[in-house]
């Protein structure tokens, strides 16, 4: 009996581990969760600064991974500001100046509306399987949800973050926490999910906190008010002409 218990204790973790999908399988499932031909998102960004906080509301139209159009709805100062991403190019339009500006080079490093997100964060390819080799580092619990901890290491050279650590919900395949690292191993950014919601069979974040780890402050909260997938978005949306409309 004693030997049976010991054998079971030795075998059980192995059995449990064998039921878990591979690391690559996990990130495929994570990608699948967000993959869609198109989506329309209405969101709020709460930016916590030294002098208080401010909320920016926006509506985004996204198609595939390389086309997106965002229109800011509030506050009044930002209302009408638009942003267009086509491939590796990003333009912004400000109604106050009635000018379209191509954001590139050092300007991509600037924060978006004073948040902890930079323009270049918005330019990243969101699909992990294209960019990283994954390794399961263990399991844990985040917000009372069992998670796998995955260490991701870049498999391509042209990539912003050399390594990531992600905490993936074992049941819903949604990243509940993410750390982004520099080549030297320095932690650069932290993303922590708050609430999650199920839309059209997918688990997606309802609230998330983005924090630039090198900067002081409490970070930037992102709240998704509504999201719809695979919408038919006209081509005209993703054109420079739509910035001035």
């Amino acid at each position, binding site marked *: 009996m004693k030997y049976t218990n010991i054998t079971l204790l030795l075998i059980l973790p192995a059995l449990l581990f064998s039921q878990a999908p591979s690391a690559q399988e996990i990130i495929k499932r994570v990608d699948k969760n967000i993959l869609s031909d198109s989506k329309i998102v209405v969101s709020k960004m709460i930016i916590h600064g030294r002098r208080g906080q401010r909320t920016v509301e926006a509506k985004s139209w996204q198609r595939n991974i390389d086309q997106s159009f965002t229109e800011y709805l509030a506050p009044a100062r930002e209302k009408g500001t638009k942003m267009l991403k086509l491939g590796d190019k990003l333009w912004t339009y400000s109604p106050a100046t009635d000018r379209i500006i191509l954001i*590139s*080079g*050092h*300007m991509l*490093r*600037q*924060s978006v509306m004073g948040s902890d997100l930079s323009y270049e964060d918005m330019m990243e390819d969101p699909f992990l399987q294209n960019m990283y080799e994954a390794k399961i580092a263990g399991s844990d619990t985040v917000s009372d949800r069992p998670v796998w901890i995955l260490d991701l290491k*870049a498999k391509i*050279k*042209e*990539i*912003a*973050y*050399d390594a990531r650590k992600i905490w993936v919900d074992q049941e819903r395949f949604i990243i509940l926490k993410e750390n982004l690292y*520099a*080549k*030297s191993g*320095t932690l*650069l950014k932290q993303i922590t999910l708050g609430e999650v919601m199920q839309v059209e069979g997918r688990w997606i974040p309802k609230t998330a906190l983005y924090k*630039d780890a*090198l*900067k*002081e*402050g409490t970070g930037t909260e992102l709240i998704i008010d509504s999201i719809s997938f695979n919408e038919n978005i006209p081509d005209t949306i993703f054109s420079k002409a739509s910035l001035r409309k």
Partner: protein
Amino acid sequence: MIIAKLAFKNIYGAGLRTWLNAIALSFSFVAIIFLQGLYNGMNNQVEKATVDAQYAGGHYWQNKYDPYDPLTLNDAHEKIPGDLAKLIAAKKATPILIRQATIYPNGRFQNVFLKGIEPEQNILSIPTSVLTDDKESIPALIGSRMAKSSGLKAGDYITVRWRDTHGTFDANELKIAAVMKTDVPDIDNGQFWIPIDKMREMTAMPDEATIIVLEKGSSFSAEVDHWQHKDLEFLLRDLRALVLTKSIGGSIFYIVLLLLAMLAIFDTQVLSIFRRRKEMGTLMALGMTRSKIIQLFTLEGAMHAVLAALVAAAYGLPLLIHVARTGYGLPEASDSFGFALGNRIFPAFTAGLVVATTLLVLIVTTIVSYLPTRKIAKLEPTDALRGKLT
């Protein structure tokens, strides 16, 4: 000769009026020479400081490099070609690698340029030798303006984030090895100087550079593939244009002064012609032609300029020599002028400047003195003798 003698007697006889005009005009003399000398000095100083610290004997720029467009920096780097590498090996040139980066002073972020330079170089007057002392951390040299804007001082550590040649983020700590005081804002504002070897390692750009600085007096200007030679004439063009603009702006002041002095001369001439009608009639009656009388009055006016030059020399010479020696102190705000001025400007007065100014004032005064005398050409001697001016 008789006209010159008469003219001298007349202006000598006018007494205080002559001296007042001469003193007013002398202010213009001194102001023009002082301001022009100041701009000459400024130009010399700015050029010297900029050449010493930034341009040396000219540059080679990687084809994609454009200092006015930071967007070009991502791609503006390349392996140093053979001809330029030979110059560098012979210490006749030094390479600089430039990348954009972000620093995080006091929990906020600030965009900067990382500039890799050889610590042992002596082509530019940047104290890069301080970058050799530290083997433990990455040493960085910054200027006092950068130190002020970031709140950093020597010995401080600062986190810096950059992207390597593939666009991958990296971050590390730099140690401020020293804070340099430089008159050249272009090597200071928003810039961190670090050892080029370390920078190449950090950015995965071995043996690469963005610009190559040639030693002073270098005659090397051969065509190099993918690199453009930029001589001093080109590099200093904008700076010279900037100084010229400021000089034109400054000249408004002495133009106004000169105009006021000319107004006084004109006024004196008009008054003089009005009050000396009978004298003119007498001179005509005695056989002097109208043109001779015009010459007399014009010469009298022009003599004010000669007197003014003497008066200006009397008080201006010691004053200008003193300023040339001690310099002209600038307020702190002048740092924002945008070029290498330093704390004091030492005006440069040249013989050419003094001669040109004297000639200018003399010619302008003569013209202004002549204008009111044209009335004399229509003067009838009989009318003049009766005190009439037609």
